[in-house]
């Protein structure tokens, strides 16, 4: 059994960030990075399936991202993934999610896993796009926004619950292998143990380029994309009227406002 988990390193912007000179992105010097919250849940889903399979099976984590993204792959290895793949080269810069999906698709084809898990969306740009895009390019069955999953490795179908709006869920059966996008709350992601972290340093982490995957230059980057960021800008935002003072003064004013507005 093999499960492939695709992860993304997401950006947090510093408060005093600046926009890049070409106006098409923020200056990445103002970003801090962390693993996408959703990806903790998809990795945990894979780890639990393996545990329930008598600890048999391989878990491979993959990301498309620059050098820094290695940190997140190492964290996944520390939690129990066996092997990691990082795809990056300069030509990939400027890829939209369709081009990123094309890269991940090639990795899946090469690895031939039984199941692919990805987060529903990434915390920074929230495209909610890549998982189903990969499934389309693979021609695989897929299910999005999964918050419960019954899957036995090797089975021809899985049963999944999709989390819909307003607390409703839909139970579906999905043909396998499949790509599933995993929702927050499906499980309780573990922390890496000290021993796991030590072991992670010795686990294989392959670094490959788009050409290693057989993709041409015009299949990635802007040329391989179906959308293009023309410019980015800081939106005008509403701003709450701030209540100033000591906590006691702030609370007193808040109490007045609440009494007035609630008609109490």
């Amino acid at each position, binding site marked *: 059994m093999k499960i492939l988990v695709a992860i993304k390193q997401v950006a947090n912007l510093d408060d005093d960030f600046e926009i890049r000179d070409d106006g098409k992105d923020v200056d990445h010097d103002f970003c801090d990075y962390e693993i996408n919250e959703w990806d903790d849940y998809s990795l945990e889903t894979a780890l639990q399936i393996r545990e329930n399979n008598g600890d048999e099976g391989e878990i491979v984590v993959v990301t498309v991202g620059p050098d820094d993204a290695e940190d997140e792959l190492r964290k996944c290895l520390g939690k129990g993934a066996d092997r990691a793949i990082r795809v990056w080269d300069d030509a990939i810069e400027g890829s939209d999610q369709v081009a990123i999906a094309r890269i991940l698709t090639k990795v899946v084809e090469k690895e031939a896993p039984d199941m692919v898990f990805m987060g529903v969306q990434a915390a920074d740009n929230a495209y909610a796009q890549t998982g189903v895009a990969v499934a389309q390019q693979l021609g695989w069955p897929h299910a999005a926004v999964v918050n419960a999953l019954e899957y036995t490795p090797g089975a021809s179908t899985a049963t999944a619950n999709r989390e819909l709006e307003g607390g409703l869920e839909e139970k579906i*059966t999905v043909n396998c292998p499949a790509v599933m996008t995993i929702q927050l709350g499906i499980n309780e992601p573990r922390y890496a143990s000290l021993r796991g972290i030590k072991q992670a340093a010795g686990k294989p982490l392959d670094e490959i380029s788009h050409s290693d995957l057989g993709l041409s230059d015009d299949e990635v980057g802007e040329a391989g994309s179906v959308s293009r960021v023309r410019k980015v800008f800081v939106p005008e935002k509403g701003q*709450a009227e701030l209540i100033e003072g000591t906590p006691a003064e702030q609370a007193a004013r808040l109490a007045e406002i609440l009494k007035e507005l609630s008609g109490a």
Partner: protein
Amino acid sequence: MSDILVIAEHRQGEVRPVSLELIAAAKEAGASSVTVALIGANAADLTGAVSVEGVDEIVTVPTASADFQPDEWKAAVEALIAARSPSLVMLPHSVDSWGFAPALGATGNYGFATDVFGIANEGGEWVVTRAMYKEKVHAEIDFPGKSTVVVTVRGGTWKPAEGSSSPAVSSLDASATANSSHVEFIEPPATGDVDITQAEFMLSIGRGIAEEDNVEQFSELADAVGATLGCSRPIADSGWLPKSRQVGQSGKVVAACKLYLALGISGSVQHQAGMKHVDNIIAVNTDPEASIFSIARYGIVGDIFEIADELVTHFE
């Protein structure tokens, strides 16, 4: 040409209201004609619900499944695009769209963007606006060389289209092999003693409460001020409050709420989907950059425990 195709969303036999927001958005974007598509085995039963002002044509695409099935919906939209050659196709940025719209984009045949809340036509080319970097930045996106652009549109951005119209109704066939099948819908657990959708005054807590043991203090505060206690997703996911108390896209929309006190809630897009319509939002958060302050009327940058300790003394 700026013909716009709107893919209506429906579930359990009801058209979802966001579909009417999309029709309004299509008109505002300057559509020369608006075609609304209804996909599903019983699509023909739903035409009345989308016969609102601004709709020129309705096309039903009967499929094997009554409810959403991603392979069938993708094939239906592809058939609709082939038949009508719209310059823009609009879908809601909803859970069902997340389940199939990216597959349309991944064919490479169309321009594609998700979660857009601005749509403009510049000299025949579509330019859309979406957020990046946790909403701190907005981006204008275009689609060079694409004659059809597919977008998912953020709910709550446009007011729903109203009125009535008598659009022409026709039907289109699309065939698909379904790789998944619907078993059943699972209704949320009974709300028990509380229905937050009916509450006029909500006090909601988020990650800022830090520990489960602190829930009690805010539950008592809610009682003291006369509010119904709600929460954001992490609190419900942790099991600290039941899911029936969760406000947001995957929780409840607090439809009747007039006063919303958000304590330790940063204000993600998903949470805002359940409460940003409330007239009077008041937020307390330690982070002055928290996005909740951009939609709140009043704000306190401060510690929710200190404020809560002081606040309760005014309601004893």
